[in-house]
Structures are given as C-alpha cells and as structure tokens.
C-alpha cells in the first residue's frame, strides 16, 4: 500500500512526500498552521508557514518565531508537493490547507464555518479527492440562525439590561468570537468595555479590521461608569472576583454549545446566544458536498457519529485521532 499523502502520526498531520507537518501538536521542524487558536498553532516548532493575517496572532501568542506567510490562493512547492492556503471563514487569518501531489488533491479544513461573518474572509469550498474535516458540531441538533438575527437579539438584550439599570457581561473566546461580537455590537447603545485578554488580542487585529472603540477595564474603572454598558470577557473570567465590579450585572454567553438548555444552566449563565465559528450540521454536509470529494477523514468533534452518517451518504469516511480541542465554541 502506498503511503497516503497526509498521514496522522504521534506528532501531527504529516506529509511525507514534502516532509512537512500541518497543525502539529508536538514540536516539529516545519509546520503549516491553519489558524491561530492554541490547539492548532502550538509552541516549539522550528519553522511556521501560515496566512499573512495569522502572523500577528501567532507572534502575539508565541513571541518571535521563524515564520513565513502566504496569501490565499498563492501556491508554493516543498519537495515537489504543491501547497496553497484557502479561506476557512473560521477566524481572521484562518485557512484550509490544499496539498497536491502527482494529481492527487487533499484538503485539510482546519476549523471552518460556511457563513460569512463580516470579519474574516469567507469560506471557499476547494475541490479535492480527500477532505479532512473537523466536526465539532457534527450532530443534526446543531443549526445556526443567520448571524444578523442573533446580533439583533444580542443588541436587544443589551438595550433591555440597560433599561433595567444593569451591566451586560458577554462571554466569548478572546480570539475570534470576541472580535466577531465587537464588530456587530451596536456602539450607539453604549460603551463597550473589555477584559485585558480581549483588549490585547483586539489591539493586534485592529490593523487588519475596523472595530468600534473599546475601553479596557482597569483597577480604576468604577461600577457607576460601567452601569448600562457592555463588557466583553473571555469565558474564564466567569466566576472570578473580577466580575463583581460589574454589579448589578446580567451574564450571557455566545457559543454553539448554547444550543443545549443545560449548557447555560450548568455554567450558571443567565442568557445563551447560539453563535459559533464552526459549521452547523447542514454547514458541514453542504461544505463536504461542495468539495466534490470521495474520501472524508473526520478529526475533532462527534467524529464517529458524523463519519457513520457520511458513509450512509456514500462517502468513504473514517475518523482519525488528533489532539485538537473538542470543546471550542
């Protein structure tokens, strides 16, 4: 049996023909990085190749590393294997990795979503023979509403809290979700305050995208000035002493997991908005169809279930173990 173009080994996804890894989870010599989330772009590789827009993110998170960047669609060759990056629509700078060798084309999706979010370059399906897909939300229970509806709800919620004399605390991951929220919050309602982690990441991305102004919460920030305004915070800030400063406050989380009624209750959050940077069920299926692929490899998420369903649809689908987070939102 010939070696597959991309193989899953103990260090990551490996292209033997080019001797290069994709999104490796152990330190390697050369790696192509799909996007800036910590589980996909890890510390300790000798050389990084990634999209231009991901460079500031990687540098912000990992410090000075040896990094080379590419544009979407720009092809480059390593040991006769042709590579190119294509928009994944997941977060700013996120890319699918296309690999072509001797007429065979594989695409690694990284994390992706098929809805244009107004912040990053929208997803494009790339024709291929084998598609490596995530399936974080690969269950028919997950269906996203158009984001315009969700943002309408979020802005309404903020307005109502303001009318009730409360501060709105909205949780979202500091890279990706926070900027998407920020982009679509209505700054006419009030001021938008940020937790340090979000402020720093957003500052890094301001050179790439236009965002409304934000105000960093500091020791000096008072309850009175926060009242009626909105605070953007990473989920980890919930439950700490930091949040007491916002009293009286109402909490909400924006995540695909908010689909489940129990998720909100278990995390002791008042309101859940269903908003994800991954595909929903139909998004996954439609995207796979659009690639025209025959083979599918399911990595993180509901891999077994999703692969089984794909096989029923006639795909040659299987699962592979990776060390990507299964709990991203």
């Amino acid at each position: 049996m010939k070696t597959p173009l991309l193989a899953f080994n103990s260090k990551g996804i490996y292209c033997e023909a080019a001797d290069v890894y994709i999104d490796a989870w152990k330190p390697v010599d050369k790696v192509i990085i799909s996007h800036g989330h910590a589980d996909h772009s890890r510390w300790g590789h000798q050389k990084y190749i990634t999209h231009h827009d991901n460079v500031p993110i990687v540098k912000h998170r990992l410090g000075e590393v040896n990094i080379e960047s590419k544009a979407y669609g720009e092809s480059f060759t390593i040991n006769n294997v042709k590579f190119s990056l294509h928009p994944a629509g997941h977060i700013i700078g996120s890319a699918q990795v296309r690999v072509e060798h001797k007429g065979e084309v594989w695409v690694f999706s990284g994390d992706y979503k098929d809805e244009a979010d107004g912040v990053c370059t929208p997803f494009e399906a790339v024709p291929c023979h084998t598609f490596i897909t995530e399936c974080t939300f690969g269950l028919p229970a997950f269906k996203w509403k158009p984001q315009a509806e969700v943002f309408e709800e979020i802005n309404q919620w903020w307005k109502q809290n303001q009318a009730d004399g409360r501060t709105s605390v909205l949780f979202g991951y500091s890279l990706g979700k926070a900027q998407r929220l920020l982009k679509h919050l209505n700054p006419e309602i009030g001021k938008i305050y940020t937790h340090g982690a979000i402020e720093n990441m957003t500052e890094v991305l301001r050179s790439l995208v236009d965002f409304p102004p934000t105000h960093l919460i500091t020791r000096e920030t008072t309850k009175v000035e926060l009242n009626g305004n909105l605070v953007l915070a990473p989920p980890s800030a919930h439950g700490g002493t930091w949040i007491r400063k916002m009293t009286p406050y109402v909490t909400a989380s924006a995540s695909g997991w908010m689909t489940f009624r129990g998720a909100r209750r278990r995390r002791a959050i008042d309101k859940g908005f269903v908003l994800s940077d991954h595909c929903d069920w139909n998004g996954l299926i439609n995207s796979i169809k659009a690639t025209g692929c025959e083979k599918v490899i399911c990595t993180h998420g509901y891999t077994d279930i999703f692969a089984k369903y794909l096989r029923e649809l006639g795909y040659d689908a299987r699962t592979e173990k990776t060390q990507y987070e299964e709990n991203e939102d």
Partner: protein
Amino acid sequence: MKAFAQLIKTIDSTNKTNLKVEALADYFQQVSDEDKVWTIAILSHRRPPRPVNTTLIREYASELANIPLWLFEESYHIVGDLAETIALVVPDSQQETEKSLTQYLEEMLALKKESDEVKKEYLVSNWKKLNYYERFVFTKLITGGFRIGVSQKLMTRALAKSTGIDEEVLAFKLMGNWNPNKISFQELILEENEADYLSKPYPFYLAYAIEDQPNDLGDPKDWLAEHKWDGIRSQVIIRKNQLFVWSRGEELVTDKYPEFEDFVGKLPNGIVLDGEILAYPNNEIGSFKDLQTRIGRKTVSKKLLEKTPVILKVYDILEYEGKDIRKKSFVDRRRILDQLHADFKDEISVFHLSEIMKFSAWDEMAKERENAREIKSEGLMIKRKNSTYGVGRKKGDWWKWKSDPFSIDAVLTYAMRGHGRRSNLFTDYTFGLWDDEHKELVTFAKAYSGLTDKEFKSLDAWIKKHTLERFGPVRSVEPYHVFEIAFEGIAESKRHKSGVATRFPRISRWRNDKKMGEANTLEDLKAMIPK
C-alpha cells in the same frame, strides 16, 4: 401556548430566582383562568397521561427531521432530553398558531384513544407549525416530566404574588388529588371549600443538611435530636373516622398500607401525624430494600403483609383536636404526641415514636451519630426546641446530619460520553474492584458526579489517548486511575455482577497518589454489608 412558551423562554434566560418568580407572577396576571389551572398542574407535576409512546414519537420525529433513527438516538443520547432533541432536529417553522395551552392539553387528553395514524398526523402537523420554544414545550407536555428549573415552591410564591393569597395557604390548597381538567381556578384557588379539607395534608417541613459539624448551631441545650429513618416520609390523617396516608411526593397511598386502619376509631378524630413508614419484619426495623417490596404494589397480599409489615415511626403532630398546631413550638407538639403515644401504643401496634435525645455537648451527639448505621438509621435530625413547623425546605430550625458515606478506592474501567455541554467529554464512568482470586477487575459501580471541570478535562484527554475498545458511546480504558468512590448504602444483590448493590455512588476524589494495585478488593466491599 404562545404565552406559556414565552414564559419558559424567559425563565430560561435568567439564573436569578426573583426574576423567575416575577416572570411567573406576570404570566399568571396575563393568562385565562383555565390556562392558570393547567399551568399550576404542570408545574406541580400533574401532567396528563402520555398520549403517545416514546418509541413512536422518536420514529415520527426522525422521519420529519429526515435523519435515520440511529442518528436521532445518538443525538438524543447527547442532548439528554427527548423533547429538547426533537425541538432541535425537526425543521424550523415560520407559521403561527393562536391555540391556547388549555386547548392543547384538551387535545392531548383526547389523543390517547386515537389510532397511531391520527397521533402521527397530530404530532407532525404541530411540530411543523410551532417555533423552537413552542415545539419544546408542546413535546415536553406530550412526553411528560416537566422540569424546567421552577420548583413547586417558586410557582406557589409567584401565585401568592399575583393573587394576594398567603403562600402557605396556597401550598395547602394545591396539595392532594385534583384534576386540572375538572376544576376551575375559582374552585382550586379562590374558593374556601370545607369538604376538600378532609383529606388534605400539610406541606412537609424539610431539613437542610449539615455539611460539616453542627458546632455553630450554638448551645446544644436549645436543640433536640432524633434518628433519621430511611423509609417513606408520610403524613397520616385521621378525620371524621377516615384514614388518609400521604407520601412526601404528595401521593395518596392509603391503600398500600392497610395496617394503618388500626389508627381509625382509636385515635381521636382531627389528628395529623408526620412520620416515617418503615418495614418491620420480625419485629425489628428492616431495610429500605424490605420496604421496596411494599412500595410498588397497588394491592397488598396477605402473604406480603405477614412477611413485610410496616410501622409508622412518628416524628411530629401537626393537627390535634381538629386544629392546626404547626405554630406551637416543637417541644409543645412533642408533649402532645408523647401523651398520645403513651395512651395508645398498646392498642395500636403500628404506632411507634421516634425517640427524642437530649445532648449537652455536640461531641456526645457525634458519638450517637456514629452508631446510626447499626440501628439502621441514616444519621441524626437536629431540631430547635422552640421551632414551629415550617413549609418546605428552610434553613435554620431543622437540620439533618447524615452519617458519613461509605467509601472505597476503585479503578476506572469504562467511560461514556456525558450529556449536553459535556457531551464531547467522557464524564460517565464505570469502576471496578479487584477480585483477588481471579486477579481481575469486577465492575461494582457507575458514577459521574464529583470531579471538578478541570479534573474532568484532564481525565477526558487521558481517556481519549488510552482507549482499549469502543462499544458505541462506551469505551473501555486502560486500568490505571484510582478514585475514591463514596456511597450511601450497601446491600447484597443478585442482579449485580459483583453481587453487591450500592446506593448513590459518586466520585469523592481522584486518588492520584495510589497505583491501581492499591485499589480495594471486592472482599473489602462485601465486608461493609451490615450483618
């Protein structure tokens, strides 16, 4: 239906109790009287009988969602709630319906006797015209078990707020058997009705648990202690020569305990006793397992009555000479009870008293607590001498101080995915103990609660890397990690592979300090079974 679905949505949008009560009170102001009665019924678990069996419901839903049944089942397993799963997987509608909650419930009542085709048509057409929350509520009403984060107590509080009727009076009115299809709001809530009061129990007063030590309750002389018996908490009512037995679940169970007819005609009328029904085989207190042989039966055979008779271990008296005496102090109530017991114990053999114990120091009480298991009690109840009999679970006057749980160190053997938010994590675990003879691990318990989120995460990552085999959602894992498992009760069991059944097993801590060879054996576990 719109208003009710909106209410559930609002309740779902806050974690704050007072906002939930407010939303409910507003709702009670808005809706029709018949919708109010149905809402009260649903929130006090008086749902109509299930009109369609769940196997059919699942088939219809997966068909409408256009997914194979196995995929529906997998989704259900992960979501954890059937109505929620259905509301999520079926296509969203843009239609509207103005039908009221009452109309829906009347339709559901009528649906039960219809053919499967009619049922299917009813479900599918409604799923198609309801929005997400309406669909969820509609399906929840069909499948039953309406738990939505509003207790009966909160509902009663909201009702008190919107009607101006005292909360305790309302709690009393809502007890017992009433049929939402037959009673009006006027009759149920607004009217004073003497005849209804004949069978009505009082709301039970429940104790809070002492987590650590009772020392900060102040002077032990202000308190009395009793053993906490492991049976069925009940009220026995004798009024106008009739007997009524109510369990804590507000179920009228008079027929199940014919022994208690002995109270009638002997005890004076106008008495309500609060006590624990206990099995009493061979003239001694039996186990909860013994009592279970009586619980499930509608009719009780003579043979069973002889084999497993019951007694009432009485804690308190709530009504005497036809008067509500809950506002008297605990000591005063006990004085009446003690006299009654002294007068009638010889005549009424099922009438047992829960003995009162006085302590001058908390550590004396702690010693008594250590003996609890030997006399088949679960620990101690501590009651303030001058306390009145309250409603529901209230902090302050009544405390339960349960015996420390049993505990044993076991090895993780299997893992299964959790539900909901944790559905991507392996959070349901199976544990084994060593069988010394065969040098293998024998499954003894399943447990899921008890780890912190951080521990769950790290164990989950370990499981994913150390899976041996997969069986559907279950994986067997390399035996390696040792956990301390706590449980409340233990008994021999033929149904379990280990030969032992434990009650409420849970993880109490991760024994990172122990190697798997240091976990306990099955023999260690068996040695814990009370002789």
